[in-house]
């Protein structure tokens, strides 16, 4: 146990055992999958048409935004060249699905249906459409376990989008609460500020939204302000997640 906690030698054994366990995990996922399938195949025609219409509208809006984004990206690259700073790391993405499987109720971990065979590696960042969700902690051939940013043992380096103030957001174990410790009372933090990843620590890609500052309590008798934040990602409801490859392919192998 000590060896597993302190070092990572046992990761191979865990991966081997996971291969035995993953059929069971897929078995446990079956009822949820069946229910999902049933609700999809029994959906009414009108509802599908409605959904289709809203999705098309949404896509149109997003495409319009994307046009601007392309222009901005090329402009950014040009400016970076002018300043002789390195270009941003190219990122590759893959959509993974959560298996409806319960793990330890006192931790915030989830099981994904993508594993080492899809190139998933330990420490890989996990996003959803609205922000950072967490990172992969164990991988096996067909599945991988990820820790959400709300897990009590998770910490993520962030900065405030408005002024670039760096901080660390800690998970609390609560469903939708992050804690931002060690911010002085006189720091420029307000409710409603957006926290984005700072990219320090080299684990998460910089610039992705993490959380909104929800409450700032400035207690002058305490050395630091008490700040709580709410994750932007829909951690409790989402089924699909994005796995991001930050490092180059050779490095990930």
């Amino acid at each position, binding site marked *: 146990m000590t060896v597993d*906690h302190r070092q990572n030698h046992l990761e191979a*054994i*865990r991966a081997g055992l996971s291969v*035995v366990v993953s059929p*069971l995990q897929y078995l*446990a996922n079956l*009822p949820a999958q069946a229910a999902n399938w049933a609700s999809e195949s029994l959906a009414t025609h009108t509802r599908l048409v409605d959904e289709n219409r809203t999705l098309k509208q949404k896509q149109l809006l997003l495409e319009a935004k994307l046009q601007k984004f392309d222009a901005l990206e090329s402009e950014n690259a040009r400016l970076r060249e002018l300043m002789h700073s390195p270009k941003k790391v190219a990122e590759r993405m893959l959509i993974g699905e959560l298996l409806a499987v319960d793990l*330890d*109720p006192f931790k915030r971990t989830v099981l994904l249906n993508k594993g080492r065979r899809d190139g998933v590696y330990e420490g890989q960042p996990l996003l959803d459409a609205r922000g950072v969700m967490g990172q992969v902690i164990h991988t096996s051939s067909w599945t991988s376990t990820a820790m959400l940013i709300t897990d*009590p043992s998770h910490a993520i380096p962030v900065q405030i989008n408005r002024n670039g103030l760096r901080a660390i957001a800690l998970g609390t174990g609560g469903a939708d609460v992050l804690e931002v410790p060690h911010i002085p009372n006189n720091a420029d933090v307000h409710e409603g500020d957006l926290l984005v990843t700072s990219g320090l620590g080299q684990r998460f890609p910089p610039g992705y939204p993490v959380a909104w500052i929800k409450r700032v309590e400035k207690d002058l008798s305490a050395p630091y302000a008490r700040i709580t934040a709410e994750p932007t990602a829909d951690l409790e409801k989402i089924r699909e997640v994005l796995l991001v490859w930050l490092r180059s392919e050779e490095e990930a192998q």
Partner: protein
Amino acid sequence: MTRLIHHNGGWAIWVSFGAALVLTMLPLPHWAELYRPEWAAMVLIYWCMALPARVGVATAWSLGLLLDVVRGSLLGQYALALTLIAWVTSQLHQRLRVYPLWQQALVVLMLVAMEQMLVLWVKGIIGEPPESWLYWMPALTSMLLWPWIFLVLRDVRRKFRVS
């Protein structure tokens, strides 16, 4: 020469362990997650009681390792706990067998609480202690479900002549 002891139906034991692991990770509504009984421990207690020569500490250890992988916990945490349960149960198996069901259920409460205590120690040492008293609920629900588990597994044992 014939062997004196003939083992039979080992697959039924492993299938029941597999079922226990599936029940361990079957999705439940959020509020019910904390009340999930310790299926693996209960099935293990039954087999250790019924067939102590067959299912013992070694089986418990391998089952515990699988449970660790299922829960994503520290490797060896549940292995240690289940090993202890198996040892205590096989020490007490003759007494347990003659107990009435409600008394057995009380022993199950103690055993599962012991398992959780061990896991709690380990979690405390590595710095992730659960902060709620509801942590102990699985022991209680395991106790309440024990009579049913016992009857079901006894029927399984008789039907498939597991020995």
